[in-house]
């Protein structure tokens, strides 16, 4: 093939790309936009895409129901999702684009590193931040414009530990494994003291690097402690799957917990069914259980078809953030982030889980936490079984 | 004159490296069965002439004809298929491979196994001291032996034209003499030979025809015997 013949399709591709640049940009004035800073590429893409999809779902429902009424004016809502690549630098770029270029005043950000970058802008510029991270460092009275959208280990941990203590009264020792990033470190810092406080001995707490492909040595080391409980708070589904599979091969019997485990099917894809049997999860939604109705199940089914995962704690945040925002705006009767932030702790909103209000002062010092239920689930034969539903208290 | 009488003809080739001219308007004619040499000082462009002919360096202008056909810019492997063989500067053996493998690769283009075996035998008769070292890695050989291997490898493609780039450089006088005899031997077997040399004395002794290259230009051409008699050559190249 000659150079010139090659050049034509390549030029065509270039033209397409230039066309691509013209998409996007500012929306119409009567639309309230929620900016989403999410990982949309790489390993975390599944969470980002799911969250964006659920946000769109909420927006569609709200618009269908007539939109948002602020002092007699009716607004539509929309979600704008950009890729933060799960890094601080990526988060900073996305934050600038959302806040400064698109003029969006409300942002949902996922991942501790991108949130840190986003928060330094939102708090300074007076924008509202919905915080989708497992840690505590970016939540509290120091950040008056930052609100939580989901249950993080601070909420999930006590529920799980309480359940385990009740169910396995003879268990006394714990080993922990976390991914060595901001999320893993922060979660570990919450979970380890919690175990200790509940009277358990934490024999070891290990970290591994993201991108690790082989877990046999780690599993062998985990097994060597012969702990009663193996706690894997922040492992992404494929990593959790590999660890569980290797633990099974080694014949490790203890109680296994994925505190942030969001999806049985995603873990099972890698672990196989038998290795996952009996494992507890803290962030998975027993959508087929008695706590949910047909409407919620339909959304979950649609979600699974759209991006490969059923609804879970993480992607529901896209839905809930939009609902929180709308409830806050309606209560404040203002689009001003400060006014909304003032109103939010007192509102009730239509969460995916049902009608909920705010609390969380005990954990964060301020009421920024929506009081969502925690579901402790156990995987039995590939299915999530409701073991305990704990309503997070409002104190 | 036909391509049969002039197996290799070079017409006014020019070449440059990154814009700096290396050879300028060089023309050569190799008579069939003859030995031709190009002599010149270090940096005169001798190696560039060889590399242009065998397609390793692109020519800016001019033509190379092999057996009457225009082969300018053709890749080296195609030229080998057309009967050209090269002993490159610095030998360029496949150093982490055995002698046998090196010789086999010399015959890469040939599919007639019996003919290849016959040629291998012929080559080993010419280089008897290589015979029991067929499984030795060639990087274990001495410099002179490596040069022999390079020539032997080039013979394995059963060439009709052979180019040698500075075959005697860095070798002991006794080896230089052997190489000289070898070139004569190859020529007598019907192969047309072109070699470039810095050592004008040995080159003019072996060759039938000779060219003198200076700063990328041919400044003299004649029979080797005639050139060896001229005063300039005596003074500049033979150190007499």
């Amino acid at each position, binding site marked *: 093939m000659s150079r010139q013949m090659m050049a034509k399709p*390549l030029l065509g591709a270039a033209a397409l790309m230039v066309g*691509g640049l013209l998409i996007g940009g500012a929306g119409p004035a009567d639309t309230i936009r929620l900016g989403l800073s999410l990982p949309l590429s790489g390993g975390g893409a599944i969470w980002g895409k799911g969250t*964006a999809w659920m946000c769109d779902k909420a927006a569609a429902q709200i618009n269908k129901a007539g939109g948002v009424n602020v002092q007699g004016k009716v607004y539509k809502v929309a979600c704008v*999702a*950009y*890729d933060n690549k799960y*890094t601080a630098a990526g988060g900073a770029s996305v934050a600038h*684009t959302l806040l400064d270029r698109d003029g969006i005043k409300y942002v949902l950000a996922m991942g501790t590193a991108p949130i840190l970058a986003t928060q330094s802008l939102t708090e300074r510029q007076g924008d509202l931040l919905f915080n989708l991270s497992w*840690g505590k460092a970016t939540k509290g009275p120091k950040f008056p414009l930052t609100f939580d959208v989901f249950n993080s280990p601070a909420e999930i941990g006590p529920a799980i530990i309480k359940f385990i203590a009740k169910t396995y009264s003879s268990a006394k020792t714990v080993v922990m494994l976390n991914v060595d990033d901001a999320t893993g470190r922060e979660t570990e810092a919450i979970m380890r003291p919690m175990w200790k406080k509940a009277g358990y001995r934490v024999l070891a707490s290990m970290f591994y690097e993201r991108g690790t492909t082989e877990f046999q040595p780690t599993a062998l080391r985990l097994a060597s402690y012969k702990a009663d409980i193996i706690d894997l708070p922040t492992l992404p589904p494929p990593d959790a799957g590999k660890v569980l599979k290797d633990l099974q091969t080694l014949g490790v019997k203890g109680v296994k917990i994925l505190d942030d485990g969001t999806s049985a099917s995603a873990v099972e894809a890698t672990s196989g069914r038998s290795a996952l049997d009996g494992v507890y999860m803290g962030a998975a939604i027993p959508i087929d259980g008695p706590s949910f109705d047909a409407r919620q199940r339909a959304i979950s089914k649609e979600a699974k078809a759209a991006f490969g995962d059923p609804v879970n704690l993480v992607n529901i945040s896209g839905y809930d953030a939009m609902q929180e925002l709308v409830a806050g705006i309606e209560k404040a009767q203002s689009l001003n982030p400060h006014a909304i932030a003032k109103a939010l702790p007192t509102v009730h909103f239509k969460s995916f889980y049902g009608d909920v209000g705010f609390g969380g002062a005990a954990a964060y010092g301020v009421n920024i936490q929506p009081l969502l239920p925690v579901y402790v689930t156990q995987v039995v034969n590939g299915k999530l079984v409701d073991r305990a539903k704990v309503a997070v208290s409002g104190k | 004159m036909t391509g049969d009488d002039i197996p290799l003809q070079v017409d006014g080739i020019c070449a440059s490296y990154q814009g700096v001219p290396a050879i300028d308007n060089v023309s050569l004619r190799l008579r069939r069965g003859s030995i031709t040499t190009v002599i010149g000082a270090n940096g005169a462009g001798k190696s560039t002439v060889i590399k242009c002919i065998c397609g390793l360096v692109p020519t800016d202008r001019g033509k190379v004809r092999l057996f009457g056909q225009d082969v300018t810019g053709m890749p080296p492997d195609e030229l080998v298929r057309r009967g050209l063989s090269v002993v490159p500067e610095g030998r360029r053996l496949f150093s982490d491979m055995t002698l046998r493998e090196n010789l086999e690769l010399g015959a890469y283009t040939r599919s007639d196994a019996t003919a290849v075996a016959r040629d291998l035998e012929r080559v080993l008769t010419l280089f008897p001291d290589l015979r029991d070292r067929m499984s030795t890695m060639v990087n274990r050989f001495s410099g002179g032996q490596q040069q022999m291997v390079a020539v032997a490898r080039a013979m394995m493609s059963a060439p009709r034209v052979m180019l040698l780039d500075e075959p005697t450089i860095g070798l002991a006088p006794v080896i230089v003499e052997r190489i000289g005899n070898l070139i004569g031997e190859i020529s007598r077997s019907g192969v047309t030979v072109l070699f470039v040399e810095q050592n004008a004395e040995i080159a003019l002794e072996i060759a039938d025809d000779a060219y003198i290259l200076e700063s990328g230009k041919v400044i003299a051409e004649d029979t080797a015997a005639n050139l060896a008699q001229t005063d300039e050559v005596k003074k500049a190249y033979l150190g007499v």
Partner: protein
Amino acid sequence: MRRRDHIVWLAGGLIAVAATRLFQDAYSISVVNLVFIACLFAASFRFVMLIGEMSFASAAFVGVGAYGAGVATTLLHWPFALAMLVGPVVATLVSIGFGLIVLRIKGPYFMLIGFAFAEAVQIAAAQIQVIGGPSGMVGIFAPRILDAWMQSFVAAVVVTALYLLYRLEWSDFGRLLGAIQNNDNVARTVGVNVLGAKVTCFAVASFMAGLAGSLTAFVNNVIAPSDFGFMLANFALVYVKVGGERSLFGAVAGATVMVLLSSYSIVLGASNELFYGAAIVVTILLMPQGLAGLVEKIRLRLMAPKAVRREA
């Protein structure tokens, strides 16, 4: 360097810095900052390419620069000027030590050792809790006085750094680096301390990479180890090649084009990676010599008729 070059640099630099005043909205300012920082990093990466090596370790030196600024500002409360320089200085010192050991190694081995170094430094930084571990550091702000002038400050620093790199490249030292790239054995035989020259080159480049890091920290206000993985250096190489590695201006042009492209491609959401990857592929296939090569080609084509006429 000729006298005219100095004047061109002075004028061009002033224009570039003055031009940053045209951007007053926060978004444009953030993109302008990114562009200038990328130009500096690309130029630093290219400076090592003068000795014929690709240094993926540079990503780590950007990180060292950024953390220097972070530690000096948020933990030690040092003055701004010192905070700007401590990172680059540390990066230079580390690079001298690292360079003395590894610059004996060449080509792909040096390149992959750089990968390993960047990864190892990234992991190590995440283990140190004083500097925030994997969460990194927040609240790295320049003095309030600079708030309205940040983009011009960044531009001024970068232009000055580029000017210094340009001067070095066209000095005797720069010519020596070129000789080393062509053949370090020849350079060695004529009595040049090749390793010394390489290490010096590497140290200069690392200082500039560190400077890019300091600027990054003050522009983003937040840094984390994951920002300084080898992908950062991958992109520097992309900038240099897209622009054309033969001149410093190629690196600058490449960085500008690619950062603008990447800023725009954010709006593509999930397709941004696909788009950016396609942009790289298309560019390298259509312009193997980069933008500079393209400009050269156009120039030659415009001049070609004249040349033909002369020949006729």
